């Protein structure tokens, strides 16, 4: 990569984020590229600040997810139930490029802040609404959480095992999916504004975002009329089997395709591979039918090695094996160290910097800016709102 300069890709943009769990990642992605992102929160702070676990003692500026998604943004508190608070919001929007919000459809209209009135007053403003189901449709008023979104969007059905209940993906991924889609959609509206001079409405549905993430479950139904079920299987040598090593687990993909490489490697490790010789083993159907026979040799072989040993030796013979890592492994992973994935950032004034994650990409000219301090609720109200009043703003 070329040596980065200090330019930032989105340093000319101002974003007003009516903060909640749906808007957080979209705002973060824009902030990471240099945009000036201002949270607007109710007096006392937005509810998603109080979600644990906390980094240290419970505190509205220490929720782990809140910190991850909001470090580097600024915060204004305003009571949108009050006229003064709404005028403060308008003052902010007058100088903004994006307004990101995740309130239930109709909630902003009830406050006189619906899209039409925003567009009339701020014609260049891009209004990004990120909601569970989108602005319209029979489920638009339904309630959802991450679990509900993953269930309705078809992704939970694919997780777990055939003999268990379906399982969602960990880490509350529905809002991550929606946030990524929303950030990309926002950029389309920005690009179009350069031509038209006008903003527009971006109406993101988490339900559709999750549905788009089902891989081929939709096409299985549409093309073949079949339901794609839960395909996870324990110690499955044919596809993506997870096996035990001496210090944890490893995932083993591509075994049939690289059969000779696998048994060659096992042989150099002193395994008697005589029972596994024969070209029929490289056929997935044969291997599936003889999985028990294979596992009787393969399971003890892997059990003598660590995950990293097994992965590195397998990769050296072009087998696509990978260790199953936890967050504890990742924070000391040499690969992430070597690319400076974790970057030291001062998150709270007067405290030592924290190794902060999140850099997915390198841009050669406009580098990832990353996080700054975590804003306390309303920390920047005075600095940003010239018309602060006792009623609407604290």
């Amino acid at each position: 990569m070329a040596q980065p300069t200090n330019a930032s890709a989105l340093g000319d943009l101002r974003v007003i984020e009516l903060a909640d769990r749906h808007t957080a990642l979209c705002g973060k992605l824009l902030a990471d590229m240099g945009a000036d992102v201002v949270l607007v929160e109710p007096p006392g702070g937005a509810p998603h600040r109080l979600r644990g676990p906390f980094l240290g003692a419970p505190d509205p500026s220490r929720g782990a997810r809140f910190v991850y998604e909001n470090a580097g943004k600024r915060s204004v508190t305003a009571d949108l139930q009050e006229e003064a608070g709404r005028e403060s919001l308008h003052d902010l929007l007058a100088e903004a490029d994006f307004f990101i919000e995740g309130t239930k459809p109709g909630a902003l209209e009830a406050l006189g802040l619906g899209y039409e009135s925003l567009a009339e007053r701020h014609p260049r403003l891009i209004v990004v609404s990120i909601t569970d189901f989108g602005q319209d449709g029979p489920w638009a008023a339904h309630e959802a959480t991450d679990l509900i979104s993953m269930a309705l969007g078809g992704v939970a059905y694919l997780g777990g095992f055939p003999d268990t209940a379906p399982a969602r993906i960990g880490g509350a991924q529905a809002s991550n999916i929606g946030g990524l889609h929303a950030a990309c959609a926002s950029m389309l509206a920005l690009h179009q504004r350069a031509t038209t001079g006008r903003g527009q409405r971006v109406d993101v549905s988490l339900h559709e975002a999750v549905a788009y993430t089902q891989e081929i479950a939709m096409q299985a139904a549409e093309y073949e009329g079949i339901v794609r079920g839960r395909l996870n299987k324990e110690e499955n040598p044919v596809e993506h089997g997870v096996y035990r090593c001496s210090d944890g687990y490893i995932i083993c993909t591509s075994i049939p395709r690289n059969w000779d490489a696998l048994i060659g490697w096992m042989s150099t490790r002193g395994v008697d591979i005589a029972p596994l010789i024969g070209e029929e083993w490289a056929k997935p159907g044969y291997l599936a039918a003889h999985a028990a026979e294979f596992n009787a040799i393969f399971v003890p072989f892997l059990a003598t090695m660590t995950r990293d040993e097994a992965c590195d030796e397998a990769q050296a013979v072009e087998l696509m094996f990978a260790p199953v890592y936890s967050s504890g492994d990742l924070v000391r992973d040499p690969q992430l160290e070597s690319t400076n994935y974790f970057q030291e950032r001062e998150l709270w004034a007067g405290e030592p910097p924290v190794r902060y994650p999140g850099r997915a990409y390198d841009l050669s000219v406009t580098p990832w800016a990353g996080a700054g301090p975590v804003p306390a609720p309303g920390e920047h109200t005075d600095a940003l709102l010239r018309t602060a009043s006792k009623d609407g703003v604290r």
Partner: protein
Amino acid sequence: MTARPLEGLIVADFCWVAAGPVGTRFLADAGATVIRIESSMRPDGLRMRGPYKDGIAGQNRSGFYNNFNAGKFSIALNMTTERGRTLARELVRQADIVANNYTPGTMGRWGLDYDSVKAINPGAIYISMPMMASSGPRRDFRGLGASIQAITGINWLTGHPEKPPQGPGFNFPDYMNPYYGVFAILSALHHRERTGEGQEIELSQYQATVSLTGEALLDAEVNGHVQDRQGNLDPEMAPHNIYPCAGDDRWIAIAVRDDQDWRAFCDATTGEPWASDTRFEGVVGRLEHRADLDAAIAAWTRPQDAHVLMARLQGAGVPAGAVQDGRDVLDDPQITARGHYVALDHPEIGPLRHDTQSFRLSGSDIRPARPAPLLGEHTEWVCEHFLGLDRAQMDELYGEGVLT
């Protein structure tokens, strides 16, 4: 409706399999002219991955390929020939965006590494998507979405704790990482509009997927606490689980966020034992006794229809959702009302529904304008319009095996 936002932009698309094409599909939906350079000697394996129309295999019949390549054009070039590589370079010279997700080194062997592209097209936005990165001890790591989610901690956080960390059951990162890539491309495009300057983007699929677990990483880094998989439970909410329903493999998800939801749930289930059980009045008690609560709720849901029960609980304001399978989602009333799936008439297999994106723009229609290309369907169109070749020259290239 005005024109689509990216109309006029040209994308030289060297992506294959899933993670790359999902990203360029977004650009095509937004109006960019996305030209897939398909190497006829090394065709995209996704074309031969099911499901297939009517279960009959064929390189233009795959739902996996067709869904994520809708709206694009295809030129089939023999990239093992110098003439084929020269034609590819000419296309790249005219492109605004050059995208690939090959293993590091492949583009370089074709003379299409960033420095070579920059020399002929300094305004190009060039993205590569290595599994790991172009440096580091695991630079040459080979993997798939399934292995990326294992090494990035997704599997560790996913599924039932009594089972091994087998993961989401599909290649989840392949549908996330491309959106990081698209966002980086569109950010670079914004910079180019202001400065005229192109640049190189390296998207690490490893780092992108790791970044989906920021909360767990900070919890480990600051608190030294390693989060484990919890099935469908939540540390702060109960009841919060997936419960059996009537029928074959039918289930419902119910999530009671707080005491207000709990009161709504009890009101909607008057007469059931939990409603009068004081152990469950507050969230602390519900979390402490969640096994008993889940067992009672499961016994209650088991004979009920998932969608009917969902409607009843939603009517009371309780977050609830049927655990839908792919067929349910395809026809659910919400997704249908929103027009998420659009039928595109494919020349070989007829009209079939495809995903659009997950959002609507008020000012333009973001959706694929055509079905996925047949292999090489637009070879002659690209030769004529972008490469300046006439009929005789094309015939010569066919004869030499450069075009196929």
